[in-house]
């Protein structure tokens, strides 16, 4: 039967079953990943956002949920605007480089 709308796929995340090894590894090398407060300043200023939807805020969250971040990350140009605006003073460029380095999904 067509009601003219459909149900979207469930986006429930079961944190008990998520594989967080990548996130833990990231935090080990880049402890600042834990102090991100998801303010989104980095996403608002991002040069790559119009092209790949890059948002460092989302990347940090997605890794904690073991979701694929490759498409977003692949357009980052290391331009450094996110570092300049981050209110927590996170060295975001290095965080991204570390992710490039250890990403194993």
């Amino acid at each position, binding site marked *: 039967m067509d009601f003219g709308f459909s149900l979207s796929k469930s986006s429930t995340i079961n944190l008990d079953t998520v594989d967080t090894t990548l996130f833990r590894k990231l935090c080990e090398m880049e402890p600042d990943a834990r102090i991100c407060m998801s303010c989104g300043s980095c996403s608002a200023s991002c040069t790559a956002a119009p092209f790949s939807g890059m948002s460092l805020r989302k990347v940090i969250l997605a890794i904690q949920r073991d979701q694929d971040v490759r498409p977003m990350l692949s*357009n980052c140009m290391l331009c450094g605007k996110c570092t300049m605006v981050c209110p927590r003073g996170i060295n975001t*460029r290095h965080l991204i480089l570390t992710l490039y380095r250890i990403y194993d999904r």
Partner: protein
Amino acid sequence: MIDRIPSGFHPFVLPFLFGMVFVLSYCLFGMVRILWQLPKKDLRKFLLSLINPKIIVKNCWDILKDCLIHVKLWKRNKLLGYMHSSIAFGWFMLIVLGHLEVFLFVPERIHMFYYPIFFNYFVAEVGDVTIQGALLMFLMDFFLLVVLSGIVLAMIKRVHSRFFGMRRTARPSLLNQIGLYALWAIFPLRLLAESFTAHISGGSFLTIPANWLFRQFLGNDLNMLPTWWAYSIALCVFMCVLPFTRYMHIPAEMMLIPLRNAGIKIRDSRKGFAKLQVYSCPNCGVCIDACPMSVNRGNLKDCTVYLTRQMRRGNEKRIEEISDKCLLCGKCHTVCQVQVEGPQLRIIERSRRHYNLSPDYSNIDVQPMVEASSGAKVLYFSGCMSQLTPAIGQSVESILKKADVDYVWMDREGGLCCGRPMLTAGRFEAAKEIVHKNEEIILGSGADTLLVSCPICYKMFKEEYQLKGIRVVHYSQYFNELLQQEKLHLEKSDLCYVFHDPCELGRGCGIYDEPRKLIGKSAGIAEAEKNRAESICCGGSLGSLTLSFAQREEMTRAALENLYTSRADAIATACPLCMATFSRYADRPVRDIAEILDAQSSPVSEKNQ
């Protein structure tokens, strides 16, 4: 002057001979290896340069200037310059004059290459002293005195480096200390040995009185031979440790100069030309005080002098740390007497890292951007960083409008990065991809001038882009042209600005005067204590990958202190990154040169009304 020892030999020359053979064969081997490591194209280029008369003259002149007289150090600090050149040039003259003596008086011994070194032991003075002989003896004593004065200064420098204009010096390692003490010992021993022998071989104003003095209480010649032995052994020790110490810079620099003059570039951070640069660093430590990171005690050991040291030791962990931390501000390269390319070495070192993920920009469609950029002669690129400092782009636009320039703003609604941050992170392939995308937009736009306001982008466009038929111009140059063509009317403000030379603009592209001219025409201008090529990085540089926010803050504050020395009312700069960085902590306004010009200018037509 006659030969005193019939065989022309004494066992005490053996240590010297051993050291000499060792060091010469080591250097020869090293030289061949470095040439071997050069890419074939570079090797050809180098060998061809060796037969080019113009380059030959330049090579000789540079070697004289840099290796013997140390002109650069003289400019930095007179005492430091004297110390280095007295030892290097004095020693060189001792060797040359020693050969001249042998050549003139005992020419049959010229093939024994220890002879000039121990000349005074092997000869005896008989009959009247000729005028040449006296002159040579005088010169020998004179240059020995020159070297000795340099050694005394070197000893003082170890304890009080401040006298030499240096706050910090690099700590020598154990082998370096052995080399250092051997070097210090050589010349006093030579003086003693020649003094003890002066009543036989003759001497001059230094050795004869010393000989007389010693004879007053020593009375016999028993101390002569042991001193010559000691002199020879000191030479041997020095030459044997030389390849493993900073003194390797002596032979390395002599090879570095011809390679540099041939136009060879660093291609691999561990081989060939790079290796030679690393070995040419005498650990003089001048780059420590120059480095903006040194305001932070914890970062002292990340300066270029420690990079060369760790590269020689092969300490991978430290090499990585040092390479990633640097701001790439280029100051160490500017002040360095042997021009070790600290920033370039690090960039290439960064390119050796392995990443599991690579950026990929193939999904980016440039067609809409080409369309948005078409239709004008002048294409203005503000760069991505300028989106955080919108005043720059707005001022540039306002000035262009006032001057009635036909322009279009390429990245008004956001565009791509120029690729320089990616390049300096050592990811050359990704940077190239970004470059190609931008090239497509710029070439497709039909413009004939690319106007750039960010110095980081400007350097990138100048050096890495293939933009045939398009003039790349920095806005400071372009605005000066507009003023020359009287397209703008200027009203001078009574504010006084101090101009901060952005690293990428000054040291990076050699543009120092144009921004000053602009400010000078629209307001007052003062100079900071350290300016132009000695300007201090704002600390915000994207060059550094690992510096933390707090560490950068200290650097920014130190750079601001330098600017405050000018007592200007406000700070002017020409870089969005400098502006954003300084604005955080500055106690007075920070303005871009475009803002200053915009505030003071009006269209020429208005004036005529």
